[in-house]
């Protein structure tokens, strides 16, 4: 394998990592801050991809981005509405919305489960044309992905320091305290999920445009992959300021993609991606738990031995 192939493989992994890190940042907001495990992520990712693709195909590549963001926010609103106003458990609300979105997404894509943007003008092709002749010409994908990630991180670091942002964090931390501060947690949960889902949809929209196609399964397993990335990032960055943790989330997504790319090189079949992400999430969540129980297991094990004697 030549050096150029290796470097291009890593660049691709890096780009993909950055684009999917937007979904990781969405989970950073909903899972780490608001303490809601948003299982509508998969469907919302596809929704963003589908809405973006349809807008691109109608000849408005720039409009695709706000359109996808708006669609994501709407999807987040419904998930949040179900769990706050309608009294549906938050996990169940996510699953229900995810299921519903499958039909919605096919409808958005014009009753098709596959859309092609090969000949359409996308945000990426527009940027490529813009950069023609400059040194950055080949890096148009990286530039867009990086710009999106930086904007979202900047937004998060500023937003989470505002009163609304503090209220989101407090809602995930101690909801009674939010109520006693005269803040309605229903409103806060709705705002939080609208924002996080708009990031997810943006992530889907960019991925679809960068690979110039959408299929209905583009988002399947995204929630587990993003969660795995978030936990990897947390393991690397640890606790700290919001900005540091947000950067950690992005780092986690990039590391995940690079490890995956390397694994593919070592002949791991591509279909194993989701299995691997599941294993990572299991290890990351139950690892600390099992470690904390270790002394107890050890004592039980030793105790057994003594009884026999």
């Amino acid at each position: 394998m030549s050096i150029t192939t290796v470097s291009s493989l890593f660049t691709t992994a890096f780009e993909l990592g950055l684009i999917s890190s937007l979904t990781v940042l969405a989970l950073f907001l909903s899972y780490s801050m608001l303490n809601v495990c948003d299982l509508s992520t998969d469907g919302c990712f596809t929704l963003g991809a589908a809405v973006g693709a349809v807008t691109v195909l109608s000849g408005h590549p720039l409009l695709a981005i706000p359109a996808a963001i708006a669609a994501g926010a709407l999807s987040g609103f419904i998930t949040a509405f179900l769990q706050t106003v309608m009294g549906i458990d938050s996990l169940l609300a996510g699953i229900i919305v995810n299921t519903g979105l499958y039909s919605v997404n096919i409808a958005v894509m014009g009753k098709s489960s596959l859309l092609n943007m090969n000949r359409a003008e996308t945000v990426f092709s527009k940027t490529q044309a813009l950069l023609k002749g400059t040194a950055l010409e080949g890096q148009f994908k990286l530039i867009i992905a990086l710009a999106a990630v930086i904007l979202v991180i900047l937004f998060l670091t500023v937003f989470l320091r505002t009163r609304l942002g503090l209220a989101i964090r407090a809602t995930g931390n101690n909801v009674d305290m939010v109520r006693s501060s005269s803040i309605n947690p229903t409103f806060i949960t709705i705002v939080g999920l609208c924002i996080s889902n708009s990031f997810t949809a943006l992530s889907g929209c960019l991925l679809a445009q960068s690979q110039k196609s959408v299929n209905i399964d583009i988002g399947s397993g995204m929630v587990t992959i993003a969660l795995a990335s978030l936990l990897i990032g947390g393991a690397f960055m640890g606790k700290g300021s919001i900005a540091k943790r947000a950067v950690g989330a992005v780092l986690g997504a990039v590391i995940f993609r690079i490890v995956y790319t390397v694994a593919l090189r070592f002949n791991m079949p591509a279909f194993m991606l989701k299995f691997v992400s599941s294993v990572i999430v299991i290890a990351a969540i139950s690892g600390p738990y099992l470690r904390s129980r270790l002394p107890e297991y050890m004592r039980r094990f030793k105790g057994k031995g003594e009884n026999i004697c």
Partner: protein
Amino acid sequence: MLKLINISKTFNKGTVNAKIALDGISLHIKKHDFVTIIGSNGAGKSTLFNAISGSFLTDTGVIELEGKDITLMPEHKRAKFIGRLFQDPMLGSAPGMSIEENLALAAGHGGWLSVTSKADKAMFREKLALLEMGLEDRMKQPVGLLSGGQRQALTLMMATINPPKLLLLDEHTAALDPATAEKVLELTKSIVKNEKLTCLMITHNMQSALELGNRTLMMNHGKIIFDIEGEPRENITVGGLLEKFKTASGTELTNDRMLLSEQEEQK
């Protein structure tokens, strides 16, 4: 100031587990009153506070605060006028957020998208210094690192940073060690006095029930069975109060913690 008219609440209505928690309570609290509330386990003291602060909707009755009907007002809206402290010091603050962030939320200054101003930070610092716990130098630290007493003092500050019309204290010093409890109680007294708050306090300590405030209520089985203020209250002893409970309710006053504290006193 606070008017309760015929407040009732039954939990698990229509089942074998039905429990009448509040049984037609009517109560009138005057402005600047400091009322202490005592009663057996399960007498409905905390349920009364839940009803006032809006944790649930009562089955019957009307709740008025300063002439305004708040019976149907949701909890978070009532929180503007009603501050509340619980026995558990963990309940009142967000452990993962810093002292400063907790105070900023409690203060609620500025619009949704505003960040905590320098003036506010200076004000928090000044107020924290009054607690004499050194918290003013730890404003960036997460609240989860504080001790129970420090957290309760912080919660007290959060509940009164915008002076509420009514302050509800639900055995807020019961989970603290005696010295810290004493300190938090002193803080409570000075805040209530300085801000001229109207205050209801549940306590298991009969002595402080009589020493603190200007009126004492005794509850049993969801009813107020004894209400004493003014001169008769000044002249009554803890023994006399227990006797009153016996005649009013027909049973001995039973409260696990109360028994414990009596034993401590006998020693």
